[in-house]
């Protein structure tokens, strides 16, 4: 078998399951061999990353609207579920993000695992998480997608519940119950969709075709489609999270250990927005048109509500968590516009939010490590005590508020702009109103972020910490952060790196919506 053939056949499968294999390997290493455990875990993550890089390098970017590296095997025949994996321009950036974040988080945690320590269990969970996240992004069969989508729940539940902060038990079960509620309705929708679309395949492409055929024949009731979309909306909307289902997020983020918060912000939330585009919009375009005004409304409410929530926070980590609600609001607004332009902005926004908010949670973790508190009013003068840490925080805050030239800008600004000219089937007045509200949200964002920076980094250290020696950025932190910081800058200057990949697929999708009245 020649190399390329091997990669086509096994590349994605290896990439997804190498972390799981690593997790199984970790189980048999004796607990006392901590160093070996860490090396093995990082090795598994890097091996998966290496395979992933090879796949992405061989990906044909000139036809990125087509599914590539497709593998289609029988799986659970009795329920017509197949093992179908494949990637296109929509999945590539998110896979790259996931492959990057996992090893970085491991490096960051290397020498300070949160209480109650136990790196073995922690790393096993992290590797299982990686398999779940990567699997979700490559799955092209709804059942396979659902299984991977759910696989991430358990490790995250334990990560928050065992290694989290004081309210960890409450936060972890809240996270679990909210997400499962969405999933339960989502799977009902998936099944309904399966039967509506002909009942012989769960492949997303076949389902979309089945629905399109029945719509063309005019024998599929709109109410059925709208209700099916509604079930998916619950599943994905809770994951994103959209207002009013966001209340699990501040608790989960705040209580999770740093590594958990970073993964949650960087990748897990994207499972929801990715699902919206990949599953809901792709398969049910006509129902999406009906839902878009409501999604848009919830998105802008999320933007404003998240921003106001931020202004009321006294805890740095909780503030960053609320800012996620606002940022995901921009992503959802881009999606709700149902235009190529808006969808591109949304995907860029996902990646940018992953990098920037992931970084912010890293920083919050490091601040907590040094000051043992995240209460904003007890902090201050970070630039004096740990200038490098302070400036990195400043850089990320600038990126987060959407400063042009940094990655955050290309997610936020085009998303707002896309609402100016939504898909023809949508009400222009309504979406222009959304646009104005969202634009106001960016002002609030600048407000709360700069206020955060001012209170934590400027001024002089509070009396409490005035005489405490604060260590500046450590080596492990540098290793974990430099790639993220570099990407924030590079993507800010050359946003086409991502737009080039995502545009062909999203153009096809945008044209579908443009054709609907």
């Amino acid at each position, binding site marked *: 078998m020649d190399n390329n053939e091997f990669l086509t056949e096994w590349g994605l499968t290896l990439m997804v399951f190498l972390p799981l294999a690593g997790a199984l390997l970790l189980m048999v290493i004796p607990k006392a061999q901590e160093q070996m455990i860490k090396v093995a875990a990082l090795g598994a993550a890097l091996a998966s990353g290496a395979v992933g890089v090879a796949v992405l390098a061989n990906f044909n970017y000139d036809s990125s609207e087509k599914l590539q590296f497709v593998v289609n095997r029988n*799986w*659970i*025949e*009795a*329920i017509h579920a197949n093992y179908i994996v494949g990637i296109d321009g929509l999945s590539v950036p998110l896979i790259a993000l996931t492959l990057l974040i996992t090893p970085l988080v491991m490096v960051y945690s290397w020498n300070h695992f949160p209480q109650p320590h136990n790196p073995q*269990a922690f790393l096993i969970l992290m590797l299982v998480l990686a398999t779940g996240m990567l699997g979700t992004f490559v799955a092209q069969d709804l*059942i396979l997608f*659902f*299984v991977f989508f*759910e*696989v991430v*729940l*358990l490790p995250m*539940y*334990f990560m928050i*519940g*065992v290694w989290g902060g004081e309210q*960890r*038990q409450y936060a*972890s*079960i809240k996270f*679990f*119950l909210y997400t*499962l*509620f969405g999933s*339960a*309705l989502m*799977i*009902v929708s998936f*099944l*309904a969709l399966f*039967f*509506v679309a002909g*009942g012989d395949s769960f492949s997303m492409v076949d389902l979309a075709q089945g629905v399109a055929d029945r719509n063309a024949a005019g024998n599929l009731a709109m109410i*059925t489609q709208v209700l099916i979309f509604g079930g998916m909306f619950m599943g994905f909307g809770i994951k994103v999270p959209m207002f009013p289902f966001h209340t699990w997020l501040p608790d989960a983020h705040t209580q999770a250990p740093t590594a958990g918060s970073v993964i949650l912000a960087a990748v897990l939330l994207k499972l929801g927005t990715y699902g919206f585009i990949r599953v809901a919009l792709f398969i049910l375009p006509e129902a999406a048109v009906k839902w878009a005004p409501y999604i848009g409304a919830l998105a802008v409410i999320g933007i404003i509500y998240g921003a106001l929530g931020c202004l009321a926070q006294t805890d740095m980590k909780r503030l960053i968590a609320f800012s996620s609600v606002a940022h995901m609001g921009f992503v959802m607004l881009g999606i709700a516009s149902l235009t190529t332009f808006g969808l591109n902005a949304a995907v860029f926004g996902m990646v940018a939010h992953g990098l920037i908010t992931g970084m912010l949670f890293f920083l919050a973790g490091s601040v907590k490590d040094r000051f043992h508190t995240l209460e904003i009013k007890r902090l201050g003068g970070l630039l004096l005590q740990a200038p490098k840490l302070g400036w990195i925080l400043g850089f990320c805050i600038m990126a987060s508020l959407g400063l042009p030239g940094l990655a955050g800008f290309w997610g936020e600004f085009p998303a707002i702009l896309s609402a100016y000219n939504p898909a023809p089937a949508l009400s222009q007045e309504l979406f222009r109103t959304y646009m104005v509200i969202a634009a106001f949200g960016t002002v609030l964002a600048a407000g709360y972020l700069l206020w955060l920076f001012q209170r934590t980094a400027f001024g002089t250290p509070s009396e409490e910490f005035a005489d405490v020696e604060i260590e500046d950025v450590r080596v492990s932190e540098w290793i974990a952060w430099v790639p993220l910081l570099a990407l924030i800058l590079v993507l800010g200057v050359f946003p086409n790196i991502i737009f080039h990949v995502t545009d062909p697929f999203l153009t096809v999708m945008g044209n579908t919506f443009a054709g609907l009245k």
Partner: protein
Amino acid sequence: MFAFLLQSVASTFDRPAIDLHALAPEFVLTGALVVVLLVDLFTPKGSRGIVPSVAGIGILAAMVPVLTLALDGADRSMFGGAYVVDNFSLVLQAMFLLAAYVVVLLSTNYVAEGDYAEGEYYFLLLCALLGMLVMASSRDLITMFVALELLSIPAYMLAGWRKRDRRGNEAGVKYYLMGVFASAVMLYGMSLLYGISGSTLFSDIALAVARGNGLGDTTPLITLGVVFVLIGFAFKVSAVPFHTWAPDTYEGAPTPVTAFLAVSSKAAGFVALLQLILIAFIGRDDVVGPLMWVLAALTMTVGNLIALRQTNIVRMLAYSGVAQAGFMLAPLAVVGSNSDGARSAVVTYLLIYAAMNLGAFAVVLIVARKTRSAEIASWGGLFEYAPGLTVLMTVFLFSLAGIPPLGGWLAKFVVFRALLSPDLTAGGVILAVVVGVNSVIALYYYANVARQMWMNPVPDGDRTPVRIPFSLAAAVTLSVVLTVAFGVSDLATHLGDLATFLPA
């Protein structure tokens, strides 16, 4: 004169053809239970461990003819159609045998270490198992009733096996009284059905139930008969509002017996329901469907809500078992439009449920050996001193909750599939949403146990490692392998699709 009589008898009475191969599983098991009694009689007191081995080997030996019958593949029908061997009976018999084998593994140490009569215990267990095997093959009211009593009466005694314990007595008596009452209701229903159809065979009853017997309007009588028979079995599967015996009985009975009741006995009830509803009552899905809809919705909701408040793990599992029964009843609500899907879904669910629930009980037994308590609070910090056991229990719990990729998700999935196909109906969709919401409620109490094990401190600070006897380790291993395999492969769904009835 006599010669004439003899001649007339000889000409009218044909000895029914007995297919020895078809009856081999029952014969082997009957032989095994006689051997168990004899072995117990002739081994000196104190030499424990022999009887359970004999019982286990007997069960596995009975598995052999089940396999040869399956390989042979021919459907067999005996006694005028009252007793059949078809795919359905073979799949379910294999499940009953395997589940009973695990129960023997669970019982080995428990019975040997407590002050219990060992020989009689396994004798009764095998008797009940024999009843279950017969149940899976019966296509006749009388055969089914005999099977039911054969599996119930030993179970009444086993439930009260801890005879010096007041809760044990309560368990036995309550189960007995409720069970007998249910039998009476059922018999009344059966007599009505016999009165209308003039036959006890399901195939004849099916005709009469669908068309009446041509002697005036018999619809109300048929309805009454159908409802009474179904309610009798609703007791057996602990469907709300006929579930009240379950928690007290489960708590008071010896834990291995509880596992047996919660898995095998409940499965036997479902086997009977499937045969009745899909063969005998198929013409009256206008009665069966709504009845099952209400029973299913009530059972899962009430079971879950009460399970939320439990502090004892066995009672929690009892109520969770009630809720799970609700999930299993759900496909029967759409039996009119999707009878094949309903059958396949219930069988698949039964297989997966047996694996994961037996596994959970096995871990409960292992942990109770150390903590000497069934309070959920006593599970605190299990992860610190028994990480492997904690992971196993986590697998079983979250499988019961239906989290992919563990078996339970596929069980829920086939229920959803049955409810939503082939066409979306309002009743099906609403029940599917009720199932969905209930799965979320259920997660809370399953996750609560996981929370104790993973996130709480050890209550008494006693971190001595847990010693796991060989038989319990085997039971847990078997259960966990099946639980995971059912979740990621098409084993269970395939068997569910395979388990078809012999066409009448």
